[in-house]
C-alpha cells in the first residue's frame, strides 16, 4: 500500500471500529461502578463457571481441612485397599519396593509426642521418608485423593482415601490398629503427626524482596581461597553418565572427553578425545541413514525434487519406473548405475543428474524399493 492511500484507509478502519463499539463511549456513563469496562473491552471474554463445574474441580484440601469431604474408614479397610492397589509400588509396609521412595519409617513414638522427627537432625540418617517429613495431614489426604494410584489417579472413592491414609498412619504408629479415621477426627490426628512442628515458613525466599541468608564476597584481588580441590569425581565414576564424547558438539574449540578411556596422563595427548568423538558421531549418523525408510532416503537425497512416487514431475514416477522394468533381472544394476552416474533419453529429453552423494547402502535400498513399486 502506498503512502498516499494509507491515511484515508486508516480513517475508514478507525470509523468502522467506532461504529462497532458504541459501549466504549456509553458504558462508563451508564455504569459508574464498572468504569473499568470501557477501558477493558475484553471483560466479557469467557463465561461464568457453574456450581457443578466448580464442585467437579475444586478438590483441594487445605491445612485447616477446608475442602475435606465427609467420610470415614478403618485401618483394616485401609490394609485391604493398600494390598489391592498400593502394594506393588509402595511395599506391604510402606517401606517401598525398589520403585518408589519409602512412605513409612524413621519416625518413633517419641516423635509423635514432640512433633519433631529426631532422625532429621542426624546427618548420617540414610533416607527421608514421607512420614518423616509430612507436617500437614491434609496434604497426605489431598495428594492420595488427587494423584493416586500412580497409573489410575482419582479412581479411589472418598472412603478409600480415608482408608489408605489411616493405614499409612497406623504403620507409622500415629494411630492404633482399631482406629477409624474420618473428617471428624482428622484435626485431632494432625496433632499426633511426628513432624508437625518441624517446619519453618521461610518468608525471605517466598518474597522476591526477601533478604538473603547467605551472602558471597565480591573481592577482586588476592581473595581468600586455599586453591585446594576439596571434591572431585572418583576415577571409577568417569563413565557414570555415558561417553561424554557423544554429548558434545563435533566442531568448536572443545570436544567431549572420551570417557570409555582413562583420562590422558600425558599433556602431549591434548585433544586425543576429539577425533574419537567425531568418529563416534559419524558412525551413529551412518547407521541411522542405513535404517532410514526408502522414502526418507529419497527425500534426503533430493530425488523428490524431480520424482514423486505416483506422478510424473520432471522425471518419471517411481511407480512407472517399477512398471517399465517389471520382470527384468538386470534392472537393479541398470538403475543403480543411472542414479549414480546420471543419464538421458529413457524418459524424455531432460537429463537425470549424477548423484554421487548417495551412499552405496542407501542407493541399494532405494533401487530395491523403487523396483518393488515404491510402496
Amino acid at each position, binding site marked *: 500500500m502506498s503512502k498516499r492511500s494509507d491515511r484515508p484507509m486508516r480513517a475508514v478502519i478507525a470509523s468502522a471500529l467506532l461504529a462497532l463499539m458504541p459501549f466504549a463511549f456509553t458504558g462508563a456513563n451508564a455504569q459508574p461502578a464498572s468504569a473499568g469496562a470501557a477501558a477493558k473491552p475484553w471483560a466479557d471474554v469467557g463465561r461464568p463457571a457453574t456450581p457443578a463445574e466448580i464442585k467437579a474441580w475444586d478438590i483441594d484440601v487445605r491445612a485447616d481441612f477446608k475442602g475435606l469431604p465427609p467420610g470415614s474408614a478403618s485401618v483394616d479397610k485401609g490394609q485391604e485397599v493398600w494390598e489391592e492397589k498400593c502394594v506393588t509400588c509402595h511395599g506391604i509396609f510402606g517401606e517401598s519396593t525398589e520403585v518408589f521412595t519409602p512412605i513409612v519409617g524413621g519416625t518413633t513414638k517419641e516423635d509423635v509426642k514432640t512433633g519433631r522427627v529426631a532422625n532429621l537432625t542426624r546427618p548420617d540418617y540414610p533416607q527421608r521418608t514421607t512420614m518423616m517429613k509430612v507436617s500437614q495431614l491434609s496434604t497426605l489426604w489431598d495428594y492420595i485423593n488427587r494423584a493416586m494410584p500412580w497409573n489410575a489417579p482419582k479412581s479411589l472413592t472418598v472412603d478409600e482415601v480415608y482408608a489408605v491414609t489411616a493405614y499409612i498412619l497406623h504403620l507409622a504408629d500415629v494411630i492404633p490398629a482399631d482406629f477409624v479415621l474420618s473428617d471428624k477426627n482428622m484435626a485431632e490426628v494432625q496433632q499426633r503427626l511426628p513432624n508437625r512442628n518441624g517446619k519453618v515458613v521461610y518468608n525471605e525466599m517466598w518474597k522476591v524482596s526477601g533478604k538473603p541468608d*547467605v551472602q558471597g564476597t565480591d573481592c577482586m584481588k588476592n581473595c581468600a581461597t586455599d586453591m585446594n580441590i576439596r571434591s572431585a569425581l572418583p576415577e571409577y565414576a568417569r563413565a557414570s553418565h555415558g561417553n*561424554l564424547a557423544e554429548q558434545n558438539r563435533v566442531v568448536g574449540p572443545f570436544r567431549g572427553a572420551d570417557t570409555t578411556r582413562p583420562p590422558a596422563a600425558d599433556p602431549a595427548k591434548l585433544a586425543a578425545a576429539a577425533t574419537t568423538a*567425531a568418529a563416534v558421531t559419524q558412525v551413529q549418523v551412518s547407521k541411522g541413514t542405513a535404517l532410514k525408510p526408502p522414502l526418507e532416503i529419497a527425500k534426503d537425497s533430493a530425488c523428490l525434487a524431480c520424482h514423486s512416487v505416483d506422478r510424473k514431475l520432471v522425471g518419471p514416477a517411481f511407480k512407472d519406473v517399477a512398471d517399465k522394468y517389471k520382470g527384468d533381472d538386470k534392472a537393479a544394476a541398470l538403475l543403480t548405475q543411472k542414479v549414480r552416474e546420471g543419464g538421458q533419453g529413457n524418459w524424455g529429453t531432460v537429463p537425470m543428474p549424477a548423484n554421487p552423494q548417495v551412499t552405496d547402502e542407501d542407493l541399494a535400498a532405494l533401487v530395491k524399493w523403487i523396483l518393488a513399486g515404491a510402496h
Partner: protein
Amino acid sequence: MDPSKATPGRIRMAPENTLTPEEASQARKARRSFMAKALAMGAGASAAGAARAAGASAASSAPGAGDGDPAILNLPLHTRSLGQPVAARGYGVPSVWEKNLQRRESPGLTRVSAASVSFAPLQGLFGIITPNGLHFERHHQGWYDIDPSVHRLMVMGMVKAPRVFTMDDLMRLPAVSRIHFIECGANTGMEWGNVAVPTVQYTHGMLSCCEYTGVRLSTLLDMVGADTKKGRYLLAEGADGASMTRTISMDAALDDVMVAWAMNGEMLRPENGYPLRLVVPGVQGVSWVKYLRRIEVGDQPFYTKDEVVHYIDLMPDGTHRQFTSVQEVKSVITTPSGGQVLLDKGYYNVTGLAWSGRGRIKRVDVSFDGGRNWRTARLEGAVLSKALTRFNVDWVWDGSPAILQSRAIDETGQVQPKINQLRAVRGTRSIYHNNAIQSWKVSETGEVFNVQAF
C-alpha cells in the same frame, strides 16, 4: 606453542588415529619442521578413508605439505550436487551433526521416568534462549499432549464471579511476551555435599530460558473480581494425573505472573505444558504449573504436597524451610565445562550464564585461579530481569592447570556465594536452592573436570 600466534576457533588435527603416541608427540613438538609435516601427511594418506569417515570436523585445516587444505581443494559433494527442495521438512529439525546435543536423564537420580527430570545440554547452547526441543523436562506423573479444544481454565475461590475460559477465550485476551528463565529448585542439588556428576548438563541443566507469550494473571484476576486484599494466596492446579498444585503469592500474581500458551514463538511443547502453563518469573520451576486448569484465590497457603513433603529445604537443626520459592543469584561457565577437552593452548572465549530470581544481573566476575583473582566479564546482549544473561570473557590458556569459576552479582547487591559459605548456613542436606559458585578444573591435558574448590 606461542599463545599470541593462536588463531581463534582453529581446528587442530587430532593425530592419534594416524600416528603412534611417540610420533604424535614428536610431531607436536616440532610441528613447523618439514619432518613433522612429512610424517603427518604420510600417515594421513594411508588413513584417508578413515579420515573421510571421521568427517570434515576432525580434519586439519592446515595446508600441510601439499597445495592446501583438501576440504578447499577438493570440492565437496554438497558443492557439486543438487540440494534439497523447500519444505522437505515441514517442521525443521537440527542438523544431523548436532545429534550429540540432547536432553538427558542423570542415571540413578530418580526411580521412575514418568516422575523424573531431563537436563538441558547447556554445554552446547548459545545466547540466552533455550531451543524448545532442548528445554529441560520435569514431570510429576508423566506428560500428555492435550487436545487444546477441550482444555479449560477455571478461576474461582475468593472472587466475585468465578469464570471459565477456553483456549479460544484466553488467546483473545491482551497478550504480553516476556523473556524469563525457569530453574528447578533442585538444580545443582546433587552437589550440596560433594561433586556428584561430571558435566554442566547435569550440574546446572534444570535451567532454561524462553520468550513466553500469554495473558497476565492479573488481567484474569481483574476479570473475575478477585479479592486481592484478603486473598493473599493462589492455588495453581494442573490438568495432569498428578493435578500438580502449588501456592502462588498474590504479590507475584499482581506483578509479573503470566498464564502462557506460547514459548519462543510457537505454542508450548507438550513436555512443557501444552496448551497452557503458569509462568512465575524468578520462582522455582515447580510453581510454573503445566496443563494449568484452575486458579483458586484463598486467604491461606494451600500446603500442597510439593510444599510439605518435597521442595522443602532441610536445615542443620532438622527443621525444614517451607515455601522457599525464589531462585537466588547464580551463574555458571558453560564452556569450557566439565567433560570437555580443550583442543589446544591459546585463546578461548570463556562463556556462561548468569541469572537471579530477584531481578537483573548487575555484574559477573570470572576467576582462572580458583577464586584468588577475578576479572569482570562482558554481559552480552539483553540484560533482562529474571532472565538468563550471557557473559563472555577472554582467556589465553598457557597449558598449565587452572581452576575456572564465575560469580554473579544481581541488582539487589546479592553476591553469589561459595559452596562453603552456603554450607555454613544451610548444611549439606538441603537438596534445594544450591546457588554456589561452580569450579571447573582444566588439567594440563586440556580435559576439564567438575571440582569443588573454595
